[in-house]
């Protein structure tokens, strides 16, 4: 049930001066999905334009089109009013567009200076890279953004916040007219965010056009001049930030009242099922402890890279904690592998479906039965009828729509792939299910289905741990929330004490 873009918003002209860069009715489709449908966007010199929208609204597709990674299927890109094309990332850079991507778009094995100057390193004699000059320039840029990072350090030795700062330094090392910031503050502490604001002001004074993508409204209202809202790949509103309220922005983003999204559910909190004490890892997390009851949904909130997923992977036996105790039903268990975890009733639905969740080249039923092959085989031989029965039982419970259970998972939509992964784990009849960003990157309709299903699981007495970076989801679904920051528990909040402000404050360490 996708909402149609709200046609009642007419789109007022924001500025009288000409934009540096404009997207004109740009469309981008992928097999089966329209990622962008005739969206327009204008970026003006010396102005910050905030691009707002839910996950899956098409923001990252726009960034990829502006940086030459994707080619639009329709519409055009204009620079100074002249239509142009960005067939490669290099072409976009040459046209003066630079982007601060997230830390995954850097090179672990290269030094900080090499990361900053990859592709445009200063040249010395014979056209060779001038390493000394490169390190000096890198140091100057890093000092300029208040980052205390030695340019010779290998990137893999940095924490996530510093990697982010390197990504910012990289964007600044390119003399660009248009700077795209894709959630630049996602992993930064408050102090670093303040320094970033100063930097944004400097860039504005230099007459650069800035596209600022963020989920944080306080940030948007603080530094943006204009806003543009996308929903489900379409433009739903644009204008001056001074003429809009936070509530109006949220309404444009979501297209309905926020409170309606989440299911109302009974809170039948049962006995203690999972107790974790003193979980530690040398580099990823420290001093994690909590208790979880049957029928409870425990949210884990934090900034990207706060160590939530890493901690969950250690509970599930993918990594081993250096110390810590885990009790299930009062009995201490030692989990050395995912197989141990499943045997003890803990299952984990990972965030990255592609890498860790579904085996896309296998059909639905084989994915579902994979961890339960012991029950669908006899003397080591698989019983096809049993497999289909098990797969059918659990996919039907999840209302999975597919032509047949023989369909390869790779041919399903993101939402349906997620259902296959969840069905797979439910088939093992777990006591505790860990859902890591369960609705990331899936459409709104599937999201609601996942939320309803999560509520149903809890109602049936399953204990649910939900890792989520979306405040509405955390607020709407959790009975209790643990906020993590830099690998540690920053706060534990109950449903009645959590507010968006307290969550953000604890997560960012303000």
């Amino acid at each position: 049930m996708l909402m149609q873009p709200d046609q009642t918003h007419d789109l007022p002209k924001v500025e009288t001066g000409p934009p540096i860069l404009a997207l004109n009715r740009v469309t981008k489709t992928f097999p089966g999905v329209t990622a962008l449908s005739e969206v327009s966007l204008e970026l003006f010199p010396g102005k910050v334009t905030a691009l707002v929208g839910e996950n899956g609204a098409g923001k990252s597709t726009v960034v990829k089109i502006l940086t030459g990674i994707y080619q639009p299927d329709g519409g055009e890109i204009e620079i100074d009013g002249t239509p142009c094309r960005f067939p490669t990332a290099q072409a976009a850079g040459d046209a003066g567009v630079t982007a601060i991507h997230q830390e995954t778009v850097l090179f672990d094995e290269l030094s900080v200076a090499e990361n900053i100057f990859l592709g445009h390193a200063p040249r010395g004699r014979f056209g060779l890279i001038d390493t000394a000059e490169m390190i000096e320039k890198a140091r100057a840029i890093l000092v300029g953004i208040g980052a205390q990072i030695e340019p010779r350090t290998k990137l893999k030795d940095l924490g996530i916040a510093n990697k982010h700062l390197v990504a910012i330094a990289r964007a600044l090392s390119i003399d660009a007219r248009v700077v795209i910031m894709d959630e630049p503050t996602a992993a930064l502490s408050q102090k670093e965010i303040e320094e970033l604001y100063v930097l944004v002001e400097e860039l504005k004074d230099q007459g650069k056009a800035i596209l600022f993508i963020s989920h944080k409204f306080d940030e948007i209202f603080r530094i943006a001049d204009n806003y543009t809202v996308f929903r489900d790949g379409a433009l739903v509103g644009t204008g001056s930030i001074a003429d809009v309220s936070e509530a109006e922005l949220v309404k444009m983003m979501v297209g309905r009242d926020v409170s309606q999204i989440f299911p109302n559910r009974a809170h039948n909190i049962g006995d203690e099922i999972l107790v974790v004490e003193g979980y530690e890892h040398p580099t990823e997390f420290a001093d994690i402890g909590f208790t979880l009851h049957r029928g409870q949904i425990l949210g884990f909130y934090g900034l990207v890279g706060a160590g939530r997923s890493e901690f969950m992977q250690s509970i599930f036996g993918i990594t081993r904690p250096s110390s810590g105790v885990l009790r299930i039903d009062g009995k201490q268990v030692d989990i050395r592998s995912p197989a141990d975890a499943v045997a003890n009733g803990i299952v984990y639905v990972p965030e990255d479906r592609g890498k860790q969740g579904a085996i896309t080249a296998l059909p639905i039923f084989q994915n579902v039965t994979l961890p339960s092959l012991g029950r669908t085989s006899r003397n080591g031989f698989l019983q096809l009828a049993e497999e289909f029965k098990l797969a059918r039982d659990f996919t039907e419970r999840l209302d999975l729509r597919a032509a047949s259970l023989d369909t390869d998972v790779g041919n399903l939509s993101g939402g349906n792939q997620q259902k296959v992964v969840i069905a797979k784990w439910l088939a093992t009849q777990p006591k505790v299910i860990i859902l890591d960003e369960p609705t990331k990157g899936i459409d709104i309709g599937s999201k609601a289905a996942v939320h309803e299903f999560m509520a149903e699981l809890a109602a049936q007495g399953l204990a649910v741990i939900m890792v989520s970076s979306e405040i509405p989801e955390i607020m709407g679904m959790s009975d209790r929330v643990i906020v993590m920051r830099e690998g540690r528990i920053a706060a534990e909040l109950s449903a009645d004490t959590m507010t968006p402000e307290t969550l953000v404050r604890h997560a960012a360490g303000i």
Partner: protein
Amino acid sequence: MPKNILMSREVLLTGAIALLLAIIASRFPAFIAPTNLANVFNDTAPLILLAIGQMIVILTRCIDLSVAANLALTGMVVAMINVAMPGLPVPVIIVISIGFGALLGVINGVLVWKLAIPPIVVTLGTMTIFRGTIFLLSDGKWVNSHEFSDSFKAFPRTEFLGLPLMSWIAIAAVLLFTLVMSRTTLGRAFYAAGGNPHAATYAGIDVGKTQFWAFTISGALAGLTGYLWVSRFAVAFVDLAGGFELNVVAACVIGGVAIMGGIGTVFGAMLGSLFLGIISNALPVVNISPFWQLAISGGAIIIAVILNAQANRDKGRIILKRAEQAT
């Protein structure tokens, strides 16, 4: 970070080579006489040249199984040119061998780049095609010592400052490619394309094109080695250097080149080659059967892979403040 420098693969490998030499010297002191070591180096020169090219290819997450076949085909081509035109000066022969080898590399590179065929399949195919082409060119006949011109045979043996030109070419290649890999944008692109192809694309690097250049360089070095090999041993035939591509890959692996791409140095590839070269030269001297020689080389490869895997093992992400080394 002095700890990292001490523990670097190159230092470890140099230590392993010194240890190996010490063990051999304890039984056969003459082995470590400078003239003998120079001979060992000269024997290993072709392996070093090929390993440099292979190292670059592996850096970009590819593999080139066609190097030995390229060597043999280019060797046959220049041998037949020499037979047909004995007066053609050696520098021209060298240019032809590099150019022809590069051309064969271009074939691999284009198939990987433009058609996106997995490199192992491409080079397995071209390996067979190159060998077959030698047969077609030569009718399966050998080109023998007496058919070559004297200058053609003399070049790699010509001594300069006490070392044969063969050795000097390997040294020059090591220096040249050390410079290319550390100080040119192409060199940096090889590391980036293999280390994180996704990120390389965002940085404006064409990953496919970078792989194309890696195959071209590997081909050029294989072609040059083809001439050197044929002239040194004064013979060209279909099965020349048969199976040698595996020694080349082994040298890279021992030299600390990560088979998953992104990690490796020219110096490491050279050390890996020398390690294998020393083993193959020393074992006959100390009367160990050639079968043991294979087993020892194989053992060395597995130990190297284990050490690399240990070094690269995921130590977890750095999230806790105390775990971060930067200040």
